[in-house]
């Protein structure tokens, strides 16, 4: 895994969550491999929510967990602030085992270290925006003056200035979720847990809020676990993405890794429809200059457009439309590879360019 364990703010080790009567039996049955999901449900009366999830999130990283509904992602995120107790496994936050904390310590952790945003907003209808935002401070006994000041700043940060005294039902869905976001960041926590925060919003508002969130997170550098069922959202927001299916983390990697090297058919199917334009880099689709020259003879690269290995396909397309030449990829002043037009087109499709001409494919 990319992050070093010692810098991990959140570390989940072998989390299992089994709902129902015989959780331990169910776990050992799955471990030994004999039983399917249906067997577990019918014979042991158990439902497996999370199955052996291990991951860690580095400081300042945005870690997206992507999965369809029922995949266990909301259950998994609730282990981090122990809204749900794991059947097996442990969660460490900055090295401290959350599952061994006493009630008081746990409450302090929740109020001061972790902010959470919910899919259904979960604002308190009897409190106005300001009192909703300041809730975490209020339960810690922060004096009113201070609370107002903090709430004002948080409300400002989510661009809701002037709405402090309104009640949730006077706000649109998008605005309500801005309040949810303000409430999560108000206590200046280290960690943000986002449980499908933008799923209930219509696409345009979702875009806006994603924008607000990304600006905020660039500014505040919160360690974030972000749950979504929308892969595009995960790719836009996440530094790393975990794909979850039936309670299992199927693959963990950067957006580019997920899109270009899907671990199995399930992930591949997901990734199929995703635009590669802003994701795949030149480094992934280029061929060595030598190969090119082997096939086409020595080339005069002087007139060729030039790009860096880290440039995305989008940039390469822009360069390519103005010329008939291939694109020369240059790193540290030395040419390292060539991207031909066909390689570029195949890259957009998400396929490798076949070295020898093949029969036409639709």
């Amino acid at each position, binding site marked *: 895994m990319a992050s070093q364990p010692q810098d991990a703010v959140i570390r989940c080790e072998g989390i299992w969550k089994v709902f129902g009567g015989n959780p331990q039996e169910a776990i050992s049955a799955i471990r030994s491999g004999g039983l399917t999901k249906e067997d577990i449900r019918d014979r042991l009366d158990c439902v497996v929510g999370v199955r052996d999830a291990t991951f860690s999130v580095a400081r300042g990283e945005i870690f997206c967990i992507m999965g369809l509904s029922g995949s266990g992602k909301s259950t998994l995120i609730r282990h981090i*602030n122990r*809204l749900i107790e794991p059947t097996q496994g442990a969660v460490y936050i900055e090295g401290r085992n959350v599952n061994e904390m006493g009630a008081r310590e746990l*409450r*302090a*952790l*929740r*109020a*001061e270290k*972790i*902010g*959470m945003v*919910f899919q*259904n907003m*979960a*604002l*308190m*209808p*009897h409190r*106005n925006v300001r009192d909703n935002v300041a*809730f*975490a401070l*209020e*339960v*810690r006994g922060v004096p009113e003056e201070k609370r107002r000041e903090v709430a004002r700043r948080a409300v400002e940060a989510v661009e809701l200035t002037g709405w402090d005294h*309104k*009640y949730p*039902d*006077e706000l649109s869905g998008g605005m309500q979720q801005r309040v949810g976001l303000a*409430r999560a960041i108000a*206590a200046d926590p280290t960690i943000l*847990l986002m449980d499908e925060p933008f799923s209930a919003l219509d696409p345009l508002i979702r875009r806006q809020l994603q924008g607000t969130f990304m600006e905020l997170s660039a500014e505040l550098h919160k360690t974030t676990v972000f749950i979504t069922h929308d892969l595009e959202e995960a790719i836009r927001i996440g530094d790393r993405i975990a794909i979850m299916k039936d309670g299992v983390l199927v693959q963990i990697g950067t957006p580019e890794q997920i899109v270009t090297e899907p671990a199995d058919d399930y992930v591949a199917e997901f990734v199929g429809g995703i635009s590669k334009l802003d994701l795949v880099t030149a480094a992934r689709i280029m061929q060595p200059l030598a190969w090119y020259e082997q096939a086409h003879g020595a080339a005069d690269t002087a007139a060729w457009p030039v790009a860096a290995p880290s440039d995305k396909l989008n940039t390469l397309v822009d360069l390519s439309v103005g010329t008939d030449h291939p694109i020369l990829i240059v790193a540290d002043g030395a040419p390292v590879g060539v991207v031909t037009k066909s390689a570029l087109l195949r890259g957009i499709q998400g396929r490798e360019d076949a070295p020898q001409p093949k029969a036409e494919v639709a």
Partner: protein
Amino acid sequence: MDKSFNWLDPFASVDLGIGEWADGIKGWAMANRSLIQPVKTFFEGVIVRIESTLQAVPPLVMLILLTLIAWQAAGRRVAVLVFCCLVVLGLLDPAAWSLAMTTLAIVISAVILCVIIGLPLGILAGKSDRFEQAIRPVLDTMQTIPAFVYLVPVVMMIGIGNVSGVIVTIVFALPPLVRLTSLGIRTVNANVVEAARAFGATPRQILFKVELPLATPTILAGLNQTIMLSLSMVVIASMISVKGLGNEVLRAMGRLDAGKAIVGGLGIVMLAIVLDRITQGLGRSGRERGHRHWWQTGPVGLVANLFHKQA
């Protein structure tokens, strides 16, 4: 077992003596009078104080006061209705107003005690399934058992008078408050409670800052029902020498005096409408009130506004 035991009619020949056993409570109560008396004296004092306060206020002042309360709690239209009902109540009979105040004192005492007992029970029932299951048959019993059944033991224990009347009223009027408090707590949006947990609230903070405020409209609906049931008990309570409108009805029945019965009955109805509309007004949610605080509306809001403008 009895020789004449008949398999087809087994119950006729079996006597477990439940009636005698229950009658033993009476004996116990009579033996422990000295224990009960001080408690009785205390409550009697409270009821008398409430009543003498209500009686001391001149009817016109009380009428204006109740109208203002109705305006504050439920708005101008309800205030007009309350005013009309009170005027009708006063015009029914020269003595009607004073009798109504006596009845009101009993109802207020009973309702206060219902709240003190019922609210914690309701919260507990809302939180614990087992407690809810345990208390439900008790509440069913309280609501359905004929009042005359517990009238006698209560009188044996405590004697006739206001305190017994209040106790009898509580038995009948308490259940809806417990039930609706429990329902209110149970129907609080679980997501909001989860959010409160996620932000580090203690169970106590969750109860007072989230659950109770959100359950308030339901709890107030329960309170409204409790008040209505208390009023419906006044005639029965008057059988154990509780004064007031109920007593008028009871006496009229004894003398077959239909006119007097109607006066007493209508008086109870008027009082019921007044109390019902005021408490229903309290139960409106924040959204229905346009998210204004209570001190921003009604007569108080008017006065506050005046001061605001002067300042």
